[in-house]
């Protein structure tokens, strides 16, 4: 509870002291990671995944993935050369390059595959093959049973901070076809391992000060100290997606709730080193991300957005 009040206060404060806060950023101590500089590891040399990385050894568990444990979606080269296959390919293009193929519906700098990693295939990064067979399902967020197409609309509205394509638009249809193709062979209405995000424990209330420190250690190399991601030098779009700011997801997105963000971070981040952060680290980092400024919740008016504590804090 105390943490919640603190976080709310922090969110409110940033409107008032944002400039000063930004100026004092490098006051927080900790190694500033520079992508260009190679330096020796501070820790002992290790043969495999870090063993002493975690602060809490009891919680740290790196799951061993056995072949066949997770559903394997079909290969790209197996997309049929039919009208259906064309739709699947179009869906994949939209999924991996939303900025270009569905740009008019998108209000920020993200692609679908910014969160649904590896073209929507990666387990515990809410893979399409685990989501599609579960829809239509009841969602607490909308308090109604939603079809997969309507769920896609919500992604456009919140995570892409844009405008939802209509249910019969070619974009929604192509994305549905792509998800349908990815989940070919997955049993319908069955929870598959790897669905959604990882499950986390929460030993204590998260701490955004610790989160900032961890963010700079683990995340800032790609997403930038300012969380704005990194753009390509020679072409449009982001190489590393922004985590906050006007080109990121908005306040109503699932990733804007600390829990979803932490669960995602635990299993996937830093990219290629999933499961290396402790559960508590993930909570801390995501609290830090959550208190940053980002596009407002389109479900509420501007007054509510300014006054009300943002959702997703617990």
């Amino acid at each position: 509870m105390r943490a919640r009040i603190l976080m709310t206060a922090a969110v409110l404060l940033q409107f008032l002291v944002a400039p000063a806060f930004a100026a004092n950023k490098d006051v927080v101590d900790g190694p500033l990671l520079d992508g260009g500089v190679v330096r020796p590891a501070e820790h002992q040399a290790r043969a495999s995944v870090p063993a002493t990385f975690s602060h809490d050894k009891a919680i740290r568990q790196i799951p061993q993935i056995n072949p066949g444990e997770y559903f394997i979606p079909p290969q790209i080269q197996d997309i049929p050369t039919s009208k259906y296959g064309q739709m699947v390919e179009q869906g994949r293009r939209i999924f991996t390059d939303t900025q270009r193929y569905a740009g008019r519906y998108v209000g920020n700098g993200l692609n679908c595959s910014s969160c649904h990693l590896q073209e929507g295939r990666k387990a515990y990064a809410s893979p399409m093959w685990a989501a599609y067979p579960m829809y239509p399902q009841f969602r607490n967020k909308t308090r109604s049973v939603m079809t997969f197409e309507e769920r896609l609309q919500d992604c456009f509205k919140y995570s892409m901070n844009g405008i939802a394509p209509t249910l019969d638009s070619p974009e929604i249809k192509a994305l549905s076809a792509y998800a349908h193709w990815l989940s070919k062979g997955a049993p319908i209405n069955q929870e598959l391992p790897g669905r959604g995000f990882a499950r986390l424990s929460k030993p204590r209330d998260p701490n955004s000060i610790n989160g900032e420190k961890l963010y700079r250690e683990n995340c800032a190399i790609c997403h930038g100290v300012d969380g704005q991601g990194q753009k390509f030098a020679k072409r449009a779009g982001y190489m590393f997606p922004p985590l906050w700011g006007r080109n990121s997801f908005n306040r109503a997105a699932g990733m804007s709730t600390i829990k979803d963000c932490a669960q995602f971070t635990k299993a996937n981040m830093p990219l290629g080193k999933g499961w290396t952060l402790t559960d508590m680290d993930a909570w801390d980092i995501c609290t830090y991300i959550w208190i940053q400024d980002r596009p407002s919740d389109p479900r509420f008016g501007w007054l509510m957005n300014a006054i009300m504590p943002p959702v997703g804090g617990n």
Partner: protein
Amino acid sequence: MRGRKWVVTLLLLGAGLLGAWAMADSQQKQPVDGSMSMDDLPELDTLETHVSMQAPKETLPNELTVVPVVSPGEYHVPPPIEDIPESKYGDMVNFGRNIFINTQKYAKRYVGNGLNCANCHLQEGRKPFAAPLWAAYPMYPMYREKSHQVVTFQERLQDCFKYSLNGIAPTLDSDEIKALTVYAQWLSTDIPNGTIVAGRGFARIDKSHDPSPFNGKVIYQQYCAMCHGEDMLGKKFADRPGYMFPPLAGADSYNKGAGMHKIKTCASFVKANMPLGRPYTLTDDQALEVCVHIWQQDRPWNPKKSMFMNMFMPVTEG
């Protein structure tokens, strides 16, 4: 003054003619029905025993084509009704099921004829080879020749409303479409997504010769007329609205844009499902012939075509 009188007279005359025509029409029906069973159709007498010309056979249904033996586990078994969860999701499943088996009540405003979904998708959409929902849902989105594009399951449902139910399609975000989708998804629990499962769609049939409409009439009277009526208009309940046996022709039946209006689709349905409880008793050719007879009957127009096209264009679905 004079002109007004003329108009009144004309109106009266017109009304009279209309009435006379209606009366004549209703009176004509009697002889038409009578002449059906006059000469070249076998007289069906329930009370007389006749000795068969055929050699005696051991079993009752004679000259069966191959009746497939169903072994357990061959077809998908959808979850039982008792397993519908008690949640919002379960409520939608129940609503979808209600719409499915009693479309006349739960989605009446979208339906233009007397049919329910379950009239063709037999046994609440569960029966294999009667276009079961559990075999259809995992295949969508799918490319359809009929609409020349990839359609989602919801759009496919809209087509059912437009053609088979001769009505107006509910919007894609309407509760009706959503509930039906939820029901279909629940029925297809555990089926691998995107795979063709046994029992999908209708039975496959072979055509050995061009079907004759005259045989179809005889077969219809023997096998179908008992339930669907001599006039093919189905049979209504005596004490409540709705059809006990669905109409196969006429204003309360599917329209000319429906899949069932295609002779091949109709025949593959008939082959595997009709007469109800005795599937696979008709031969492939008999099924085709009876469907030609059904196809020839009058029914609502194809809404995809205008009035003149419906009247003058050569029919293609045969």
